[in-house]
């Protein structure tokens, strides 16, 4: 029972990260058919913003020393700013280009960000201790769960609820949903394209920053590649969820998290190193059966 409970928390915590990542990618895809592969690099950028630029192994903490109620909004703002800037400086110019061109542009941007970090911080992972007291376990129904896992899950649920409220209850949210479904039609009804897209980028950037913070707290290191794995799985989650479908992306994120955890726990010991191969294999299986994704939305069709 306790092992099972532990498994559930593992699955939810991992799924939370994937879900937040998938949400950030799906939001942008919804409004401009762009799969932003720089998203994972936003995560790393936000984490490195906590450190002074230096190529030494020992990290000199910069923003990381601030109290959490200043630090968290600040890092979220950095994520939003980076994301918004990449829209204004780069993606805006590709607005009418085909999706493949935009995707390549996002790869290029990812490289630029990664190498910018490389230049300032070198490629060696740096240790960073954010809120180390959070790694202490708490007891829930007899199982010992790391406090950080509990917080990750709670934060994710809070973010999902807040975003749902924003999308359902506010005018901007309404415009964003309309634009995600049919961008040209929304514009013909007076919805301001630039504003909706900027807003989507800002939210997406904040999600990347949140993931970066959680990752850095979990691992205690800042690594230039830290966002890459999550970005890949999050992208897969958006495809499985049905591209452009936000709820689907979140659900698929949690599903992959659960699958990953279950494989880790239940695969024979020798096969565990191949866990990711099993996860990706299941993904292929799902897509063979439902190529349009599990929760395909009507807006996934190409726009004219």
């Amino acid at each position, binding site marked *: 029972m306790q092992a099972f409970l532990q498994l559930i928390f593992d699955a939810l915590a991992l799924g939370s990260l994937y879900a937040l990542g998938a949400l950030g990618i799906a939001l942008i895809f919804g409004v401009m058919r762009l799969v932003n592969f720089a998203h994972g690099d936003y995560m790393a950028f936000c984490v490195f913003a906590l450190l002074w630029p230096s190529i030494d192994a020992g990290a000199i903490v910069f923003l990381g020393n601030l109290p959490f109620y200043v630090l968290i909004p600040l890092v979220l703002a950095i994520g939003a700013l980076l994301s918004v800037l990449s829209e204004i400086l780069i993606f805006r110019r590709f607005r009418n280009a085909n999706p493949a061109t935009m995707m390549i542009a996002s790869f290029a941007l990812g490289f630029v960000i990664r190498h910018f970090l490389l230049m300032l911080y070198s490629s060696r992972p740096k240790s960073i201790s954010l809120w180390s007291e959070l790694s202490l376990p708490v007891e829930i129904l007899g199982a010992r769960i790391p406090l950080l896992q509990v917080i990750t899950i709670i934060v994710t649920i809070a973010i999902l609820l807040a975003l749902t409220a924003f999308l359902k209850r506010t005018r901007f949210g309404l415009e964003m*949903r309309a634009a995600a*479904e049919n961008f040209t039609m*929304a*514009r013909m*009804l007076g*919805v301001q*394209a630039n504003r909706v897209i900027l807003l989507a980028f800002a939210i997406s950037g904040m999600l990347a920053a949140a993931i970066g913070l959680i990752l850095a707290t979990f691992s205690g290191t800042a690594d230039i590649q830290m966002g890459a794995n999550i970005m890949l799985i999050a992208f897969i989650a958006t495809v499985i969820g049905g591209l452009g479908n936000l709820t689907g992306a979140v659900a698929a994120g949690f599903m992959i998290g659960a699958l990953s955890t279950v494989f880790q726990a239940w695969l024979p010991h020798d096969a565990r190193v191949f866990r990711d191969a099993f996860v990706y294999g299941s993904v292929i299986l799902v897509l063979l059966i439902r190529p349009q994704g599990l929760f395909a939305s*009507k*807006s996934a069709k190409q726009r004219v």
Partner: protein
Amino acid sequence: MSLLAVDGITVRYGRLSALRGVSLTMAPGEILFVTGPNGAGKSTLLKAIAGVVPPVEGKITFAGKTNGADGPEVIARRGFSMVPEGRNVFASLSIEENLRVGAGMRTDKAEAARDLESVYEEFPMLAERRHMAAGMLSGGQQQMLVIGRALMAAPELMAIDEPSLGLAPKIIDQVYEILLRLREKRSLTLLIVEQSSTRAEMTGGRMILLRGGEVVLEGDARVLAKDESMRQAYFGFGDH
């Protein structure tokens, strides 16, 4: 003073020109039908006016302002409301949300709230289903919804691309009845694209005939419909 003036516009998709030197004007309160065979450039004409596909030559003036490179959201704010081909409801949004998107750019919130009620009065079946996803509606109901949504923007000019496409004749009658009533009530200017001239003949008003991206005939719909040259112009050859 005309509300809309299209002055010699040419629109190209790549090397293919969809419109060549098309001109037309519309006075406030007028009803104008644009007819023509498939591929004549009718939908392109509406998209050009809406600012979705900018013309490479010529200019479009609407409500006293030249469209230039203005995007659809800017032109919509000047009072141009478009009901494009294929209806384009926001399928995952509820009916009421669809209508609220239509009113999103308005600043007169109280007035917009009254308009919402009057749209519901006009289309009682929308009121009954206001919290239902728009994608669940039938074709005819979706057509009503997009007309209602276009009305929520309180437009000066409403352009409708093939309102009768894929609808049963009885529903088409209903759609036109509503359009004409709205035109009376709100002094709407209507620009309607239809493939055939039958509706233009029934409704009356001015009509232009597009073929191969050019205006080939223009005049009173009822007079033109009786004219033998109309049929020849439509198909581009004489009677067999």
